[in-house]
Every structure is written in structure tokens, then in C-alpha cells.
């Protein structure tokens, strides 16, 4: 496995992603300051989700790595979502 070919990501890609991440950060601050009441938190979390997807795929190279890494990360995120969902069900219908 030492002969794996490495994908070289251009600097431009990283800078473009950085730009997107900063814009999304400012956007999430703006949304919550304008106050869309209960939707603001959801929107901020959605933006955080989008931001983390960019970090995982580009910065952490998941997009260019072997499939196994994507599967592993996907399974852990799915596990977290399921546990959060079940915990919330427990609290809502206790």
C-alpha cells in the first residue's frame, strides 16, 4: 500500500474553501443576530453542517481518499445522529 498515488490539491482549492467557510461563518452570525427566533439555531446548525462537510471533504482529503475512510466517517456520523435522535425521543415522550 506504500505505492498509493497521492492527489495534490492546488492551493487555489484550499483558498476557495477558506473563502466559503468564512462567508458561511459571517452568514451564521448575521442570521442569529437578526433573530429569526427558533429557526435561527436550526439555520446556524445547518450552516455548521455545511462547513464541516467542506472541512471533511477538502481539508481532510476525504474526497480524494480511499473509500474506506468515507465509509468510516459516515458510519460514525450516522451513529451520532441515531443516538441524538433516540435521546431526544426519550425526552419528548417520557
Amino acid at each position, binding site marked *: *500500500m506504500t505505492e*498509493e498515488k497521492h492527489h495534490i490539491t492546488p492551493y487555489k482549492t484550499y483558498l476557495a474553501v477558506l473563502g466559503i467557510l468564512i462567508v458561511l461563518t459571517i452568514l451564521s452570525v448575521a442570521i442569529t443576530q437578526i433573530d429569526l427566533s427558533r429557526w*435561527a439555531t436550526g439555520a446556524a*446548525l445547518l450552516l*455548521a453542517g455545511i462547513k*464541516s462537510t467542506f*472541512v471533511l471533504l477538502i481539508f481532510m482529503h476525504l474526497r480524494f481518499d480511499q473509500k474506506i*475512510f468515507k465509509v468510516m466517517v459516515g458510519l460514525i456520523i450516522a451513529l451520532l445522529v441515531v443516538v*441524538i435522535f433516540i435521546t431526544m425521543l426519550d*425526552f419528548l415522550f417520557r
Partner: protein
Amino acid sequence: MSNVHRDDFGSKLGMWLFILTELLLFGGLFITYAVYRYLHVDAFHLASQELDVPIGTINTIILLISSATIAMSITSIQQGRKKLTLWLIASTIILAVIFLVNKYFEWGAKFEHGLFPGSDYLDSLGYGDVLFFGLYFFMTGLHAFHIIIGIAVLGFMFYYVKIDRLKPDNFQLLENGALYWHLVDLIWIFLFPLFYLIA
């Protein structure tokens, strides 16, 4: 030394497994946060207004830039540009230190206002505030602890690149260090809106 055994794939797999345990660790804390927030909506809402949104935003952007610089160091080492690689790692470390300095002033201001776990003032505010600030200090503290470890890790990477232990054809260790740094960034991406932006 012509045929040293190396397993880049195994090395990366190990790093990812460690990162996944970290995600579960912080994931557990996020669940704790979600439950207590659900039980104390108003108190969390008000307590969150005590946090300094501009400092939080600046720190978020600092971490994002540091994440980009360490990602670019992987490109530069592959291109054999050693000097640029060293500069990029150094900038990442400097940005990390700036993040911690901001954190120091931020926490310091909270302490001055009597907002720290166990203070008489915080105890008088009620259960919701105690929980909010308990989680705030624990989660941002644990995150800051990861930043300190990250600075040490990146310091080693800087040294290894300098003495040519990490080279254009052998840089998996640097990639692992960068993955750790991105993890620190990833966690902050969720900490920031949950603590600063729910007011």
C-alpha cells in the same frame, strides 16, 4: 536504507480511528448539551448573551485560516517546497497561539464578572446558568486543551520537516498532524454556534 518498510495507509487509518473516537467524545458532550438546553431553554438563551460574539467570530475565522494553512502545507511538501512548508506550519502554530490568547482574555473577563464554576454569583443565578457555564467551560476548555496538544504536534512536524525526516515522498506524518488540526477546527465549527449564537 534502500527499502525501509512503510505503511502510509495503515498510518492514516490509525489516525482516522483516533479522530473518530474524538468525534464520539465530543458528540457525547453535544448530546449532554442538547438535553440540558432542552430542559432549561430560557436560562441557556439568557446565559448565552453573556458570551462575546465578536471575539468568538474572530476566533472562528482564525481557526479556519489556520486549518487552510496546514492543509496547504501538504500541497507544498508534495511539491518539494520545503521553505514554504515550514512557513505554512509556522503560521498555523502562530494562529493557534493567537486563538489561545483570545481565549485567555475571554475567560478572564468571565472570571472577573464572577462567572466561573463554583462562584457564589453563578450559583445565585440558578440551575440553568450553572449548567450552561459548566458546559461552556468544560467543552471550550477541552477544546483549548486539544489546541495546546495540536501546537505541540505541529511543533514536532516543523522540526521533522526542517531536519528532512519528512520529505516530498514521505509526508504521511505531516498529513496525520494536519488531520488532527482539522479535527480541532471541526469541533469548533459546532461549539461556536451552540454557545455563542443561540442568544
